[in-house]
């Protein structure tokens, strides 16, 4: 999950296409560990795609997922973005596999969907609402 967050953070910082080094730099600044595989996988999934598009398309798909599953999908999506594309997701938990089976979209678009779901979750994270209650 943090890899995507670091990526998006780099994009906010003005880099249209963050590199693996950018992501490592960001994660490293607070001592967060980063797995090169994850970073490379994310970058290869994203390359050539417009992040705004991904978010928009993910938003539509998210709307069609029942809300109960939404949370689980979002969390699994973070693992899913790493695991789904590299099919044998041995390192990830079984929970992710169960959600993958429930998911109806085909495998080809699952990685897109997962990432989009995940990005939506980040963007719609209701921090704004939380802040109002401070």
């Amino acid at each position, binding site marked *: 999950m943090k890899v995507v967050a670091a990526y998006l953070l780099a994009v*906010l910082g003005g880099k249209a296409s963050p590199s693996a080094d950018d992501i490592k730099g960001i994660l490293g600044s607070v001592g967060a560990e980063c797995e090169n595989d994850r970073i490379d996988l994310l970058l290869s999934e994203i390359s050539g795609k417009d992040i705004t598009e991904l978010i928009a398309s993910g938003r539509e798909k998210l709307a069609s997922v029942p809300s109960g599953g939404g949370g689980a999908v979002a969390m699994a999506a973070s693992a899913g973005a790493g695991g789904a594309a590299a099919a044998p997701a041995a390192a990830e938990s079984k929970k992710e596999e169960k959600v993958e089976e429930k998911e109806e979209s085909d495998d080809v678009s699952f990685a897109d969907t997962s990432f989009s779901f995940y990005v939506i979750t980040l963007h719609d994270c209701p921090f704004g609402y939380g802040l109002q209650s401070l």
Partner: protein
Amino acid sequence: MSSIGELACTYAALILFDDGIAITAEKIAQLVKAANVPIESYWPGLFAKLAEKRNLEELIMNEEPKEESDDDMGFSLFD
């Protein structure tokens, strides 16, 4: 929706949360600085305070449509 500063701090908080690192204002500021994002100076403090008050995991997992309840804003994804 969210301002850049808010978004940046959100991402920073998520990164810290993911690695179980304490979500403090300094760390958030460090992350945002490493990413070269200009933010207003009050954001990291606000987010650190929020992280103290609210369980981030709940915030992430609970995206239910807003119910017609009167309490405390609720956490709604769809307005």
